[in-house]
């Protein structure tokens, strides 16, 4: 499935109010890779992700998904291939019940009813939320909402998963469950996050975005050990790599 | 102010329902024609916004009381008339269901009073004319104020007319009008201020937002059709209600027309459903629980609707015994209903 590569070349984007959010971003991600996108607030992570499935149209530069450049014509195909989990699950869960929400995508794909049922139940089972199927989304906890939001994307059968801060607002247990879940996926994944400890667990590769440019791109261990680089990008070494002040008082 | 089920007659409620349903279908078709699928979530979320916003109050200068945002005008400004009407309709539906504001039969009246006037009259003919193409803070203030006030005046007039034509309340038309219009002038001013404050803020922060509504429909193309549909519906309602009155209970309203036509109309109910009802009532021979006022007799016009017209002669004098038995019976029925409910609840809990 070598065609599930993501290729972005010299991407520029300016918001209508004049904020230049991306100024020439380029990278290439191959099949099965799990990539973290980190960077300070306002660095342009969300903006970049919105380009990957055509929610925003690049001002200059290209986005290629597999063999297709992303254009109006390939948009439906690309959206089926690329599943996007939004930062705020409340934005993503708009249907009356969990089941309806997870079924929303497959319904729009025009699948037969049996297939829809199968896909919905499978997606819910994957995230461990099958018991929530008849609940309305506004009566779920933050972690449950996140799980269902992921299921609502999985039910579309995407080969590339894009997530914007999936671990924000989760308690330690829910976060741990999410990490397990993400590790079990074989999809190509791009995760924008501030949770660098999660990055260590889930992503083999890390890109740092700074002021709309890629400041660094490489193996996660290398990048997250590079203190000067992290500091320059307003980031911090993840706690786990900082060493324990109790067992290692000299460093502390 | 929301019209209540308890105050309207089926004729008024039903006809206003029909008018509102027509406008809803028409607006839905218009919204679909606009082909702007951004509006699908936008309408719903803005409806929820109006709800949330109405829970935040502000202090009315120099009075110490408080006011809040009205929905219709701001929605029309942000969404255009058709989408705004649909949104208003669903806001009022949720209010009727969850807060018992109004009621389900009165929903037609309420959607008409609070949705039709701001969306299809005040916004296109007043706000747009005042604010026009070159919006500035002063124009927005004047436009919001005037259109909010007028929309509410029309809405209040709607409430008065609907109440009056229903004939359940004894309030004379003129008195009710004199109470309602000034109250709603005050409410209108407050709402105008709130609307202006919010619209000005949005216009300053993000002028493009307001163009969303303006874009699909330039100033010159403001359609008269919904207004005509609405007014026609009202005319139809008035005619329908008048004839209902002429045949039913003109009394209690100083309505000379009904009095003049009273005699012939009395004959009318002899056939059709009314006659059937009356016959059924005669056959079962249950006496009504109360008699007519003596004075009613020489007016010829009975207080009761047609169904009971036939009995007028049979119970000229008020019988204390009947009244007592009526009340005893009502108590008994209530007790029985209560018992049934209690029994069912026990059964339900055991099941």
């Amino acid at each position: 499935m070598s065609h599930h590569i993501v290729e972005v070349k010299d991407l520029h984007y300016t918001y209508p109010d004049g904020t230049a959010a991306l100024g020439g971003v380029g990278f290439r991600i191959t099949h099965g890779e799990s990539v973290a996108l980190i960077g300070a607030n306002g660095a342009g992570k969300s903006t970049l992700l919105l380009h990957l499935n055509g929610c925003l149209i690049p001002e200059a530069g290209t986005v290629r998904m597999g063999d297709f450049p992303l254009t109006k014509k390939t948009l439906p195909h690309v959206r089926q291939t690329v599943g996007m989990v939004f930062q705020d699950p409340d934005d993503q869960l708009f249907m009356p019940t969990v089941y309806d929400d997870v079924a929303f995508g497959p319904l729009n794909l025009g699948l037969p009813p049996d297939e829809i049922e199968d896909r919905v139940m499978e997606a819910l089972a994957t995230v461990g939320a099958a018991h929530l199927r008849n609940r309305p989304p506004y009566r779920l906890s933050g972690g449950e909402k996140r799980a269902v939001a992921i299921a609502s994307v999985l039910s579309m059968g995407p080969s590339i998963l894009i997530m914007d801060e999936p671990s924000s607002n989760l308690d330690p247990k829910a976060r741990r469950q999410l990490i397990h879940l993400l590790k079990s996926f074989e999809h190509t994944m791009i995760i924008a996050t501030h949770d660098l400890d999660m990055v260590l667990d889930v992503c083999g590769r890390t890109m740092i975005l700074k002021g709309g440019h890629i400041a660094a791109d490489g193996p996660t261990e290398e990048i997250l050990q590079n203190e000067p680089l992290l500091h320059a990008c307003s980031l911090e070494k993840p706690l786990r790599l900082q060493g324990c002040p109790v067992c290692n008082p000299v460093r502390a | 102010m929301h019209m209540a089920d308890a105050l309207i007659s089926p004729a008024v409620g039903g006809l206003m329902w029909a008018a509102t349903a027509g406008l809803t279908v028409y607006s839905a078709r218009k919204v679909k024609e606009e082909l702007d699928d951004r509006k699908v979530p936008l309408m719903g979320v803005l409806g929820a916004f109006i709800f949330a916003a109405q829970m935040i109050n502000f202090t009315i200068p120099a009075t110490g009381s408080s006011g809040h945002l009205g929905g219709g005008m701001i929605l029309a400004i942000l969404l255009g008339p058709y989408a705004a009407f649909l949104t208003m309709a669903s806001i009022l539906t949720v209010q009727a269901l969850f807060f018992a504001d109004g009621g389900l039969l009165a929903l037609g009246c309420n959607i008409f009073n609070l949705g039709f006037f701001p969306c299809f009259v005040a916004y296109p003919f007043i706000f747009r004319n005042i604010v026009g193409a070159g919006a500035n803070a002063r124009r927005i203030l004047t436009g919001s104020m005037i259109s909010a006030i007028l929309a509410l005046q029309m809405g209040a007039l709607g409430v008065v007319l609907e109440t009056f034509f229903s004939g359940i309340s004894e309030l004379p038309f003129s008195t009710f009008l004199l109470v309602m219009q000034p109250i709603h002038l005050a409410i209108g001013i407050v709402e105008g201020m709130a609307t202006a404050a919010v619209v000005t803020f949005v216009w300053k922060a993000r002028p493009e937002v307001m163009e969303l509504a303006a874009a699909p429909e330039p100033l010159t193309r403001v359609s008269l059709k919904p207004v005509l549909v609405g007014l026609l519906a009202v005319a139809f309602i008035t005619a329908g209600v008048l004839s209902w009155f002429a045949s039913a209970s003109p009394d209690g309203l100083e309505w000379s027309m009904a009095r003049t036509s009273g005699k012939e109309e009395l004959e009318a109910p002899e056939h059709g459903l009314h006659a059937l009802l009356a016959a059924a009532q005669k056959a079962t021979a249950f006496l009504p629980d109360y008699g007519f006022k003596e004075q009613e007799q020489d007016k010829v016009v009975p207080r009761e609707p047609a169904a009971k017209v036939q009995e007028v002669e049979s119970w000229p004098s008020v019988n204390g015994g009947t009244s007592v038995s009526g009340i005893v019976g009502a108590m008994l029925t209530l007790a029985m209903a209560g018992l049934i409910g209690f029994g069912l609840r026990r059964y339900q809990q055991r099941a």
Partner: protein
Amino acid sequence: MPKIESSFLDISRLDALASQRTLIHGLDPRAKIVTTLIFIFIVVSFPKHEVTALVPFTLYPVVLIALANLPPGYLFQKVLLAAPFAFFVGIFNPLLDSEVLIHLGPVGISGGWVSFASIMLRFGLTVGAALVLVATTGMNGIGAGLEKLGAPNSFAVQLTFLYRYLFVLTDEAARMVRARSLRSFGIKGTEVKVFGYMIGHLLLRTMDRAQRIHQAMLCRGFTGELRLPVPLKFSWRDMGFLAGWSSLFILMRLVNIPQWMGLLVTEVLG
């Protein structure tokens, strides 16, 4: 601000009631919607001085409250809270119509009081029936039912969206109000200008949210038409509910049952 939170609690409470599973909750929303409308229509069709003949209609809400396991006290309290307008308009009747209509021995009751009682009774019945409808069907059921009954799709969709985001936005508004009052150090009330900023901000955030929701919808293949997937099946049970109650309502409209029972009792005793 207690008001905003209590309104929100109200919605949540009714919503929770609607998610129970009883015989009544399991009925097709259409059956309940149509029965409720017939009920209201027949109740308001009584002449304005009718009181006793309205009493048997309490049976409908009472039976549904019992079968659907709803808290009667809470619903009664909600009915009372909604009463002011009907009360305000109705209370003029005793003032304007003081001719004696009923004699109870030495006491005469004026037509105005009788019609006022009738208004309040109608009010309780119609509002009660509407509340029972929500508490047994829920907003989403009602939306789907209305669509199946012929309401335009965009209206039904709008209704479900409104309801969905009511919970999110009231929460947001409540947070905003709390944040403001924490920084206003006991100064009560909000200036119009501050109010404009607050509501304006809430509005802009709301519009951004709408945009994000739209993007999320597009990402999952939304093409403009939104189908509400609630599957509805109108079974014999629903038909029975609708037909049974409707015929009872019509019977109660034609026959003044309390009058008849009262006569029976007073005759036996006399």
